[in-house]
């Protein structure tokens, strides 16, 4: 399923598609005509190629925000859980403040502060993926910390940084990874929402969110322009979520 979605990146390389922003075809061609699988939009862009390029944005943002959250949040959480004390209290309090914001509201505020661009959207979404990962990493580290092999490493005089990287990290990574895939799905939804509001990828460039937003203006006459990107968005999130569920099931079965 994931492979099917990664086609977004490979497909344009091996098979020439019309430019997603050129606007060089006749506008409003209905879907399933020769040359334009999904037809064209109001300004004469090929919808199929816009879907592919828009999918790139969704996947880049989804994985980007989740990976950033996993690395930064995981490191913060692991350190907080491992060292405890003042560091733990400070980190967790600050993250709690971020968690008090509804995710979308925080993302809207940060994205409007930074201005519309794909990279900024990733930063904005990371503002809440980081705290979630940190909380999970800390909880898992607290369990790992009490294991005998950590005590043994400490008694042998291994430095804390080395213990964290070599012994703690491998043990807390699997639960973080499975949570990470759910984070990807969530980030894709938020990206679409931001683009929908005009705070994501700036309009001439396609993203599923701003395609839906543009299509919404002609909802009564041309519902296809909303339905196609919506269906792709739904399918992408569904695929990522199902993979996450399967991973989690396997992980808990062990």
């Amino acid at each position: 399923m994931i492979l099917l979605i990664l086609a977004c990146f490979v497909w344009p390389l091996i098979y020439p598609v019309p430019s997603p922003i050129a606007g060089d075809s006749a506008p409003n061609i209905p879907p399933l005509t020769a040359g334009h699988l999904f037809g064209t939009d109001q300004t004469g862009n090929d919808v199929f190629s816009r879907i592919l390029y828009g999918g790139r944005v969704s996947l880049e943002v989804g994985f980007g925000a989740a990976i950033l959250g996993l690395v930064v949040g995981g490191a913060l959480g692991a350190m907080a859980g491992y060292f405890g004390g003042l560091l733990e209290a400070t980190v967790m309090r600050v993250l709690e403040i971020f968690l008090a914001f509804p995710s979308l509201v925080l993302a809207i505020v940060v994205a409007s502060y930074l201005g519309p661009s794909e990279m900024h959207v990733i930063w904005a979404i990371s503002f809440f993926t980081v705290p979630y990962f940190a909380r999970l990493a800390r909880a898992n580290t607290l369990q790992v910390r009490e294991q005998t092999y950590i005590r043994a490493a400490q008694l042998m005089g291994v430095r804390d940084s080395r213990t964290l990287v070599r012994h703690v990290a491998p043990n807390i990574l699997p639960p973080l990874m499975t949570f990470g895939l759910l984070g990807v799905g969530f980030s894709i939804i938020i990206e679409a929402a931001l683009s929908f509001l005009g705070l994501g990828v700036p309009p001439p460039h396609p993203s599923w969110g701003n395609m839906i937003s543009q299509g919404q203006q002609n909802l009564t006459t041309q519902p296809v322009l909303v339905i196609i990107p919506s269906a792709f968005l739904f399918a992408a999130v569904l695929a990522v979520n199902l993979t996450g569920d399967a991973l989690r099931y396997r992980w808990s079965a062990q």
Partner: protein
Amino acid sequence: MLTRIMNSAIAQAVVRRLGQVVVVMLGVTFMTFALMNLLPGGAAIALAGPNATQERINQIRLELHLNEPFLVRYWHWLSRAATGNLGNSLSSGQPVSHALASRIPVTVELVILALAVALLLCVPIAILGASRPNGIVDRFATYLSVAGLAMPNFVFGLVLILIFAVRLHWLPALGFVPLSHGIWRNLRTMILPVAALALPLFATFLRVLRADLIDQMYGQDYIVTARSKGLSRRRILTVHALRNSLFSLITLVGLNLGVLMGGTVLIEEIFGVPGVGQAMITAISLQDVTTAEAVVVIIALAVVVTSLLTDLTYAFLDPRVRYGSDSR
């Protein structure tokens, strides 16, 4: 009796929790203020318009105290906000609190209705599903919740508009009739937004409640006891297991309030519901900093307070917590 309650663990827990809430709220207001006020260019240029002279910009900066240090401005804003004065809107010049006062009840109605719909639907379906794990109802419920979780609520909202307003003409797509114009007319405009908002909640609740019910039914000692007393499966499920599963449901409601509040922002924007979320989007697009920060703080405050309330409800309902024993 009263002193015993006052000295009990729960009283201490409440005090500690309140302390945390205050710290979190200070952090929330500070961060909102910082994000909104460190904008490059900033309010003065936005307010003065594109053709303003440098003198005009300087004058506005003076009026808004923008030349003072950031922390001083934060302190002024916070102490005024504590008395309910959220400043004047930069776009309309009206006091922000007036503009928002009429919007808050609308958002509250939307959120409560969505929550009620999600809860009323998920409990019976989860019970039916759990009574026959992997039966038809259960499988259908699982598909439904997986699909519901993957469907962004604004997309679902558009789909609803497409079906019920554009194709069938059953319900209005846009517009809002206030409650004062009659309950039925108000509800008619609320059906679609509420449905769109309730779907992801319903999916989350259904998924967790089903898993929890099945967990209770097949692993707990008290279920075995109830079975050996000769109670029917249905009675055990709806009375004994559900009672325990409701606790996780309450926690879940608390955890999802943030998602719900975030969702209203988009739903209000799509359906033209004049709530606080719509005010926030408008304010951000107009660079109306005072209104935007007020809305963000109000939403965050609502989330923090309601999650405090769910914690307290939880503590009150669970006798182990209520009597302060550490048996958990």
